[in-house]
């Protein structure tokens, strides 16, 4: 379906790619991640969206200087072939661990909620089967899948109604009564929910109307922020501060509050449906990893995808001790922050670097 450097992504594709890749598993734990800020946390998604929107600026500026190339190629152009390839290799390692972290985080939840009496190896295998299938269709297939899963899953936001009616709106008065330290901790832990928009660095060459990409990306970011806002606001209304701090998956408990005569456990339904969001996030990252290997080996092969998927699958199944695993996955999220700011440096390097070295 996909042909190299053929422009395939229209405006809708870009909007949904940006926003659906952002909503991964973190939405389920977001109120808990933001709990250092107490009840004031509900407006944090707005703050995050603003920061993300500002961070998109240098990214779009950079890639619009290299309209035909993705970040892997830009690295090689800016730093020379070998340093660039080294950087790309590091990036690939990071992305692989990141995909593993997302999958594992979701699997842990599924294990707790839906399949307490089974191992998750088979579900994981099935998950990977679908993952590879979607990814092999190329970026347009991923974008279409994003649109589809958005409409398939976002309606469950309706189930927040119960939490809202049971909740207490008085919790949400903006008091700003947190210390700078708490603000920092909440941002540090919570901003991870916004990561995903940076992938535009990789699929930018495929966008048809590149000059509109910034507008479309911003739209995606704000749709996502509104979804976050509704969820976090409902949590703030529904829970006490202790519950926000101690309940690991607050969104699960919000769905738990739903009272329907024909459906008992909405939370299990919601968590199972969540697989669509996890798939959209991981499939986009997987596609980037595949592109990365293509660029390092300077050849486009389907087999790269299968190899990468197998590596990640095996990586998840390595029985790391829990603390090592936790350490690795936490570090990955810090690298993610570094990566989001990285284009800013690239912009500076681009400006400093004299134009003669073959830079367009």
């Amino acid at each position, binding site marked *: 379906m996909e042909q190299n450097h053929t422009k395939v992504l229209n405006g809708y594709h870009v909007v949904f790619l940006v926003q659906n890749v952002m909503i991964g598993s973190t939405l389920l734990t977001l109120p808990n991640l933001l709990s250092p800020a107490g009840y004031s946390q509900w407006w944090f998604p707005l703050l995050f969206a603003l920061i993300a929107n500002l961070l998109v600026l240098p990214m779009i500026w950079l890639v619009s200087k290299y309209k035909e190339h993705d970040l892997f190629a830009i690295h090689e152009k800016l730093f020379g072939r070998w340093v660039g390839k080294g950087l790309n290799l590091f990036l690939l390692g990071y992305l692989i661990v990141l995909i593993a972290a997302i999958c594992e985080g979701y699997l842990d939840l599924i294990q707790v909620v839906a399949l307490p009496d*089974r191992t998750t190896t*088979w579900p994981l295998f099935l998950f990977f089967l679908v993952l590879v299938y979607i990814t092999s269709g190329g970026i347009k297939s991923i974008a279409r899948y994003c649109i589809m899963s958005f409409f398939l899953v976002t309606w469950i936001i309706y189930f927040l109604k119960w939490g809202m009616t049971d909740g207490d709106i008085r919790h949400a008065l903006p008091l700003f*009564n947190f210390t700078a330290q708490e603000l920092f901790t909440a941002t540090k832990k919570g901003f991870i929910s916004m990561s995903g928009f940076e992938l535009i660095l990789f699929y930018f060459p495929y966008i048809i109307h590149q000059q509109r990409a910034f507008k479309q990306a911003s739209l995606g970011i704000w749709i996502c922020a509104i979804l976050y806002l509704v969820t976090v606001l409902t949590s703030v209304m529904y829970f*006490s501060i202790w519950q926000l701090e101690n309940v690991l998956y607050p969104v699960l408990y919000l769905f738990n509050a739903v009272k329907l005569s024909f459906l008992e456990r909405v939370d299990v339904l919601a968590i199972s449906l969540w697989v669509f969001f996890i798939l959209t996030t991981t499939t986009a990252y997987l596609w980037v990893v595949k592109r990365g290997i293509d660029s390092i080996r300077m050849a486009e092969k389907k087999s790269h995808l299968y190899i990468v998927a197998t590596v990640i699958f095996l990586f998840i199944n390595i029985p790391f001790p829990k603390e090592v695993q936790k350490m690795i996955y936490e570090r990955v999220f810090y690298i993610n922050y570094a990566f989001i700011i990285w284009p800013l440096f690239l912009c500076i390097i681009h400006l400093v670097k004299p134009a003669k070295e073959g830079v367009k």
Partner: protein
Amino acid sequence: MKRILPIFLLLLVGCSEQGKQRSVEDLAMASSIAFDMSDEEEMRMTVSLPYPSTESQENTQTYSVDTQLIQEGLVKVSAQADKMVILNQLRTLLFSEEFARNGHVAEVIEHFYRNSTVGNNVRLAIVKERAEDVLRASFLDKPNTDSYLNDLLQPKLHTSFSPFTTMHDFQYTETSPIFYSTVPYLELKEDSVEIARVALFDTGKMIDTISRRESSLMQALKGLDKLSPLAITIHEDGEKEQVHIELIENKVNIKSNRQVASPQLSIELRLQGALYEYKGNKDLGKEKEYKRLETEISQRIKKDVEELIEKMRELEIDPIGFSEYFRMYYDGKWTEELTEQIIKSVAYEVTVDFNLLNTGTLK
């Protein structure tokens, strides 16, 4: 073939998983659990397991075990029952008064709250004597005790004096520095169970109960907009008048002066109701006497509200959540000490405005 392969694999996986699956027939879904004190160390846990279709005469099986840990207790019950006990369908948790007064309710709730297979809408109730007796009682005209209890503890207009505490509500009020928990208090009668009073909690321990009437006013102050019917007795000039009011619409407006150091509250209740029954000497056809009745009812409710607040002040608890009106403006971390301070020192002014909508279809 290439396209069919994934589907084929999927089916294959489905088959392999089938063998491990537990079938519904092997499971017993606990629907109510009662907790009593056994001795100092152990608690007595009574689990009721409804069997939807059975050839036995009883369609519910009830097992009691003495245990220190809840999960251990469930394993012990499974050892007696012919099926494996699971909690996915748990609806009701009952605690004896003794158990609640010893402060064990919070531990039990925290255990179940942690368990993701238990829904958060499980309803709680305190039982006057032994909670076990309620589950073991047979109510001749009820299909089974579990569904009877479940229906009884669901919110309904006529019983809306009851707080209908779910597990989430209890956990919420227990962990919040503002609120104090309230739980319906049941009494076992000869052939029924009655929500007789409402139990009050202070930091995990049951400390007292209040009457249904007081609880109804408490619900009004908490902002419930439809109240249970009120029976009011007015003593005016030595004469006794009785009124029964239904369909009461409630609007509550509470304002604080936002100052924790010298807290003040103005509480305004606006009630509307229909007069269903009246015993007294007033001629309600006359506008003047009709108005006078309204004023008398307002004054009576005002007095009751003030008495209720004084009672809460004596007990040093805040189940209505008056402190929230100060916390919502308070810059800093709110603590339980601040709530206590508010309750002890708050000056309040109550105004009740009762509006009689009609007196039925007769003049």
